[in-house]
């Protein structure tokens, strides 16, 4: 009976609102009725051009959703220049989201990884957990989601133009020295996430990270997003320390579009 509603490849939605977040990052709002969970992603189709994975950066009960896109190439540029009323295709939600375990939680994010991490931070805060969000950016201008109601935010910049001057991992270590945390959650450049894994396991703090890999199908069949026998689109994008510690590719190598092994 279900199929008699018709066969689609993707759900076409209209962009309802475009919100500029930084000089190179915008959030696109639309409505998509689904059971999206914190940390999941969509495959976003730019009709006629490309389809790219995007974390779900806002999840409202009434079906309102957003993705937050950083302009890094052709597809993301097209998304960043879209206007309200234009159409995109949505497949998903896909993947496994954050476990949301832990009581005193340190979230460490960088770059467009903040799009994913921000929903985790908000969700931890909503259920009354003690949340500290540590954001790394190149400069003050690149800072994404720097202010959040009800969440302690700490900032680092590479050039010192805001907050801590240096790597966000160094900032994170300082916070870990000052306070007790029982959970570390991270999303951002893989080298940074790898560093946080080392820190977390040295301190025996539970850890999870949301990974990025080149994606094609998004549904666990094509192997494009493979990492150590897992698929980021299905086993992830969020993986626990227990798995990541066993994957020697993590923070080291990835696959290109042809499936060749390349250095990160």
């Amino acid at each position, binding site marked *: 009976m279900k199929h008699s509603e018709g066969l689609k490849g993707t759900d076409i939605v209209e962009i309802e609102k475009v919100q500029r977040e930084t000089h190179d990052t915008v959030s696109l709002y639309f409505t998509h009725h689904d059971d999206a969970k914190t940390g999941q992603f969509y495959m976003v189709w730019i*009709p006629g051009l490309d389809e790219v994975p995007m974390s779900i950066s806002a999840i409202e009960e009434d079906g309102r959703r957003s993705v937050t896109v950083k302009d890094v190439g052709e597809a993301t540029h097209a998304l960043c220049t879209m206007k309200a009323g234009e159409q995109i295709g949505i497949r998903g939600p896909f993947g496994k989201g954050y476990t949301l375990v832990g009581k005193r939680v340190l979230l460490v994010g960088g770059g467009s990884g903040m799009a994913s991490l921000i929903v985790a931070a908000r969700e931890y805060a909503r259920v009354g957990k003690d949340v500290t969000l540590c954001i790394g950016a190149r400069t003050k201008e690149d800072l994404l989601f720097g202010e959040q109601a009800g969440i302690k935010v700490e900032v680092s910049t590479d050039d010192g133009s805001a907050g801590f001057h240096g790597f966000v991992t160094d900032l994170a270590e300082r916070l870990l020295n000052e306070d007790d945390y029982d959970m570390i959650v991270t999303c951002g450049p893989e080298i940074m996430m790898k560093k946080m894994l080392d820190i977390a396991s040295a301190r025996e703090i539970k850890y999870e990270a949301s990974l990025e890999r080149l994606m094609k199908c998004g*549904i666990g069949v094509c192997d494009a997003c493979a990492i150590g*026998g897992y698929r980021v689109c299905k086993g992830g994008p969020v993986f626990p320390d227990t798995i990541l510690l066993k994957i020697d590719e993590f923070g080291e190598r990835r696959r290109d579009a042809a499936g060749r092994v390349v250095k990160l």
Partner: protein
Amino acid sequence: MSDLSVNIVGPRMKNPLMLASGILDETGESMLMAVKKGAGAVVTKSVGLEANEGHRNPTAFEIGDGLGLLNAMGLPNPGINDYEREVKIALTGGVPVIGSVFGRDGKDFSYLAGKMEDYGASAVELNLSCPHAKGVGMDIGADPEEVGIIVSAVSSAVSIPVFAKLTPNVPNIADIALSAVKAGAEGVVAINTLKGMIISPETGLPVLGNRLGGLSGPAILPVGVRSVFEIKQRFMKEEVNAVIIGVGGISSAHDALQYIMAGADALQIGSVMRWKGAAVFGEIASGISDFMDREGYSTIKDMVGIAQEAKK
């Protein structure tokens, strides 16, 4: 107690279930995962001469609620030279690895097959059936004669068994199968995907980056079972003794048994992993075993092709 093992390629397979080409087998580690979950053998992603990024996205998606997948990956692969690494890793799983290759002619195919043999593959599978790549796949695999020429070239170039993977987008799949086997193939694999397209009316565009793609999953099961039935029927009539590997839409032990009774000696499993993951290998194997115990079959061979004998 039922015995699921079959003797198709290299070491005896503990069950007749292989990982199908192109689904979770571009990397060695992913093939190992399928082995861990119970696959009796694995087929690699189809590999060509050069590294190839494939078509642009969207390259694959689900249609309906579990009805099937439509894909136009465009045969992405690292190229045969880089692929040694993946085969070697897959081989550590201890089950036969079948190297799938694609090319434009007998020369390409022979070279690629030779490399796969060198890497340690137990057999090669010739992709004569991909429906969405120019000049390769079904562009050359829909004609019995061309298939014969390619198979014959490869068969004399390698000493491991050669399997021809066939397209269902033809009126006469049994003719093509017969031609492949007469040219020296150990057997055939049926079926590859059905040529298909999905359009998004709101945008007026085909959804796949390549527009045209291949349909797989539950939707194509009846076409695959029929194809295997027709091939087996022809092999019996011509008294040809060759292996048939059934693939297309298998989601359950019930589906797998349909292929076996139509005439398949072994099976390949692909799209269903979108819904059940690699755990489906264990599920189907134990489902077949339960069925055999219940209905009194002791080996897979006892069931192969029994639907052919239906009074008619």
